[in-house]
């Protein structure tokens, strides 16, 4: 019954505690499908397709990998134009721009673009995250030329036709409304607003109903020309293609994209301090609970010990501490997990629990106890080793699909982790000690900092 929803980019995967919404086939999954794997877990034991990077004269970074298992080619363009760049008074501009580049170009209307795309069975999606926008295409090799023509056309020559932009705005406003029916979305929104205070990460990527309504096509064009530049972008091309073919077929279509200076967006990073409790009354049967605090930026060395810490605490695997304490021992929840969101700027760490309203208080107490335990006692050697084995061993599975691998490569580049990152990842993880984990736990984890509960507050005994 899911409507046609785009797959979230890697950075957003961890937002979803419910990996598989109920669909018509009615498969029920025993626990959270796909052990929630942190952003950018690394390679270790198994070889990944080798990636090569070239830089074009317009400073577009182009990364190419070959993977010939199916006759298809994947393209992912990362543009450093996420909601972080939204002007204070125009939340949702980056997201609307990303969605709107697909609405029409100098030579093609919306209808023409989509008829051509659909005729070759290709996909073309635009997603916006807090740090960047991602425009992705998957196309059969035999239709590469047609697909590429459309891909480069929308990226380089969008025109933002106003009637189509208005329709896009209605879609976004409608989906903001329907997110209010999803307790996780409601909790996420409240959590971000409470934790990030006045920081650009505080507001929803989509903006608000009011802010989106006020955006005009002039602002879109201007945002586009400020940020959608080759020198502000990374393009990954992978699949059934060679570097030679990329140079011969694709590069000529990209050289007309003009570079320009990019203005720095001032950074305002501030967080809620002390104790912030947010309770939202909603007529639902479960309480959705989010507990959390600020965390590090993606490039921080603390990222790795924290990653291992999270793996032990709340990876979503049945062996994680939160799963064992809340689900396996007490039957309090089906879904319980934790995750850090490390971004360009300091991000967040959160625990998410969904339990019946009457168990809300007990669950919060148990989760806080586990958070305190991390701050006071080193993790055991067995837990440490197991977490390392999982993180290093799971990488090839996680990135065995072209789209996921392409997004991963783009983000390695974006976050400045170095192109040898996949090779170094295992040693970064394996070097983590239990003392370091205790150190990052003490440094970051604040069990009572921000608590959000979305529930029938009377039943949850919060009222």
């Amino acid at each position, binding site marked *: *019954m899911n409507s046609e929803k785009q797959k979230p980019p890697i950075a957003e995967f961890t937002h979803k505690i419910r990996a598989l919404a109920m669909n018509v086939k009615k*498969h029920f999954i025993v626990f959270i499908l*796909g052990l929630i794997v942190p952003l950018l877990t690394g390679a270790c034991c*198994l070889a990944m397709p080798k990636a090569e990077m070239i830089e074009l004269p317009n400073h577009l970074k182009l990364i190419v990998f070959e993977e010939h298992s199916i006759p298809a080619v994947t393209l992912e363009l990362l543009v450093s134009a996420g909601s972080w760049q939204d002007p204070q008074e125009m939340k949702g501009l980056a997201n609307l721009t990303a969605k709107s580049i697909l609405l029409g170009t100098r030579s093609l209307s919306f209808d023409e673009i989509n008829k051509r795309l659909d005729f070759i*069975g290709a996909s073309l999606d635009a997603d916006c995250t807090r740090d960047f926008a991602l425009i992705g295409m998957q196309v059969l090799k035999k239709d590469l030329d047609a697909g590429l023509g459309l891909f480069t056309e929308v990226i380089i020559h969008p025109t933002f036709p106003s009637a189509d932009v208005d329709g896009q705005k209605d879609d976004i406003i409608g989906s903001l409304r329907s997110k209010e029916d999803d307790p996780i979305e409601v909790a996420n929104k409240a959590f971000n607003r409470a934790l990030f205070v006045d920081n650009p990460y505080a507001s929803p990527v989509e903006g608000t109903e009011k802010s989106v309504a006020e955006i005009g096509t002039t602002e879109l064009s201007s945002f586009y020309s400020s940020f959608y530049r080759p020198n502000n972008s990374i393009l990954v091309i992978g699949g059934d293609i060679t570097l030679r073919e990329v140079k011969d077929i694709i590069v000529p279509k990209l050289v007309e994209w003009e570079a320009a200076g990019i203005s720095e967006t001032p950074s305002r990073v501030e*967080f809620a301090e002390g104790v912030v*409790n947010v309770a939202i009354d909603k007529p639902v049967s479960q309480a959705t609970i989010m507990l959390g605090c600020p965390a590090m930026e993606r490039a921080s060395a603390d990222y790795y010990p924290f990653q291992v810490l999270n793996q032990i605490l709340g990876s979503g695997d049945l062996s994680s501490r939160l799963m064992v304490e809340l689900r396996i021992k007490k039957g309090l929840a089906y879904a319980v997990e934790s995750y850090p969101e490390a971004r360009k700027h300091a991000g967040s760490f959160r625990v998410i629990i969904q339990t*019946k309203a009457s168990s809300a208080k007990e669950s919060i107490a148990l989760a806080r106890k586990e958070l305190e335990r991390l701050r006071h006692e080193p993790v055991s050697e067995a837990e440490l080793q197991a977490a390392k084995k999982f993180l290093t061993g799971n990488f090839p599975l996680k990135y*065995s699909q072209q789209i996921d691998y392409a997004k991963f490569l783009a983000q390695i580049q974006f976050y400045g982790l170095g192109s040898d990152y996949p090779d170094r990842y295992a040693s970064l993880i394996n070097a983590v000690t239990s003392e370091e984990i205790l150190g990052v736990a003490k440094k970051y984890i604040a069990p009572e900092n921000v608590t959000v509960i979305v529930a029938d507050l009377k039943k949850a005994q919060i009222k």
Partner: protein
Amino acid sequence: MKAPLIFVLIAALFLFPALSTGEISKDISEVRLSNGLKVIMLENHKAPIVSFQVWYRTGARNEIAGKTGLAHMLEHMMFKGTEKVSGEQFVRAFYELGGEQNASTSHDFTYFFESLASNSIAVPIDFESDRMSNLVLRESDFRTERMVVLEERRMRVDDDPQSFLLEQLEAAAYQSQPYHWPVIGWAQDIERLTIDDVKAFYSRYYNPANAFIVVTGDFKKKDLLLRLEETFGKIPAGTAAPRLFIEDPRQPGERRVIVEHPAQVGSLVVGWHVPNLRSEDSYVLEVIKAILAQGKSSRLYDHLLRGKALVLDSSVDYSLTSQDPGLFYISCSFLPGKDPKEIEQAVYEELELLKTGPLGTRELEKAKNQLEASFVFDQESIESMGEKLGEYETALDWSAINAYVPSIRSVTPQDIQRVASRYFTAQNRTVGILSPSKPSSEAVPQPSGGGIKQRSIRYRASR
């Protein structure tokens, strides 16, 4: 290797010309172990990973009144360990391999799957064969797990307005077919389940006669079969459960279900009784699905979402691999402020168009291209290929997958008109409408304040 392997070789099935897309068939083979257990294998050496799946030909369809949810309950209990290995040890073993494991229950089947590095394939083989006959079912585990399942139901169904509507629609559309009740079970039934119910279901359905194995990815067939024979091959075959094919009598008239549920956005789901892959019409329905809802040039998107701007999203769901005939679903969420009656009428008009006007060649070609491209893209994931083979095998025979592309290719404009006229009638449909039980404006949490009960924020400077 003592017991001889009985190789029932299915020669590569070249059922259709060497389309690049249809070539999977030649890599698929089928073997029976000495106890008759079927093994379906698809080799794909693109990466050193393998997906191992054990499928049981049982699911919610085998439940009785008052005990719905039993098949899914057992699926959960399958993670509680055997006489040899505790549930914790099992979970931990996979975790340390960096592997992924999960399970899924439908009306027609229950399957357990592990994805991991191919050199560790012995681990899931040993464990899956162990838990096929040596599962330990403890009362205490069961009591806790039943609470977990009740939480799962609250999360997936009770607090998700769309899922709730779907459950109600299916209970009305199906009468004698087991699809009448939800896979997860009615809440009161789940509460009624006992450990003895679980034990009885396990001993009746979990045996080689009622199962098959699917292995996809990177493995050596000979070694694999040796290992399977030494493990699964030693399990007494048991008795295959009778396979009933159940089809509701012709629906005597339109059925309507109204669900009043707290929600921001109203929605509509309509289901028509249609055949599965045992009928050639199923492929025509696949093409109709693409014409209506695949891509942004599809009719529902173009007419309802863009043209008339009535809906927030629209989608079609239809699976040709159900064991008994299923429903063809069209669903949409209403754009706030639009009249549900007008939307429902607009959906029916789209179907009338299919009946009256013959489809243009290009539009038909587009739909076929899309389906064929999706078929290729789906082959990238060894796990989803395994799932697809398992579904075909459950519904009919795995080799039916080879008929998919050629059957799609042979659909004519006349087929579309004929099939649309035959199934998309008022008499044959069940209509479900989600009517938000609160006016939207009232329940929208305000940006700050509103439903938020307590809030105390202090600021801290950036880290």
